[in-house]
């Protein structure tokens, strides 16, 4: 595995990748387990942050700036997703009180 130099001491890239994987798995667990639609959105943000960490770790290891540019794009998409998701949630909550994502299953047919 690759290492890189920070202020004279060596850091291992695989540490960053492993941390990104753990945070991503935590976000997945939250999306699967939690019942509140708001918290599910928060967990998606957590997963996107984990992906950003992985992208930037690879970018540093390969000394290629494109990973950071992609992380910037991910942040933009995450912001757009949060805005639209929260707007939809506010709209739903205005009509009725939803405590559980299972309350929103009318479209099932």
């Amino acid at each position, binding site marked *: 595995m690759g290492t890189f130099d920070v202020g004279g001491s060596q850091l291992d890239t695989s540490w960053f990748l492993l941390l990104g994987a753990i945070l991503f*798995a935590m976000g997945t667990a939250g999306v699967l387990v939690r019942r509140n639609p*708001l918290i599910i959105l928060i967990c998606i943000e957590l997963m996107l942050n984990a992906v950003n960490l992985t992208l930037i770790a690879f970018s540093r290891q390969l*000394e290629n700036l494109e990973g950071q540019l992609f992380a910037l794009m991910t942040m933009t998409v995450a912001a757009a997703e949060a805005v639209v998701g929260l707007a939809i949630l506010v709209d739903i909550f205005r009509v009725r009180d939803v405590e559980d994502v299972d309350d929103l299953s009318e479209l099932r047919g």
Partner: protein
Amino acid sequence: MAAAVFFVAALLAIAGGIGVISFRQPIRSVLSLVVVMLALSVLFLLLSAQFIFVVQIIVYAGAVMVLFLFVITLLGPARETGGGRLRFQAGLSALFVIALLGLIYAMFQGVHFRQPEQADLSVFGTVQSIAVGLFTSYLYPFELTSILLLIAAIGAVYLSRRDES
């Protein structure tokens, strides 16, 4: 020294992540996510991504999280009550997540990095170098991003207006 900074930030991030998925009140989850984002911003600085570090703090931990907090205060503190209708949901989810983590870890074992590109590390990740990349080879994606943000803004305004009829 750098390793110590990494481990402190990583522990903080993992603790925050556990907080995000285990607190019952949404407001505590959001504040835990702010902890995760600040810890990750320290890691970005270690990875010499100065610009992303600033953006992470200002845009993410600042703007996006404040948006979440506003929505939570708007909707009231909805506590989560009881389990879902699906039995075994927690157990199945744990199984799936462990399998996912194992899969990712197994993938890491086969990673062989190619030779670094010998970039000039004194300017790596600064505003200037990011801007050069963004406005030359990634100009089209960058412009498309602005359209995406415009669509999101219009969509949010449309969804949250009051029905006049």
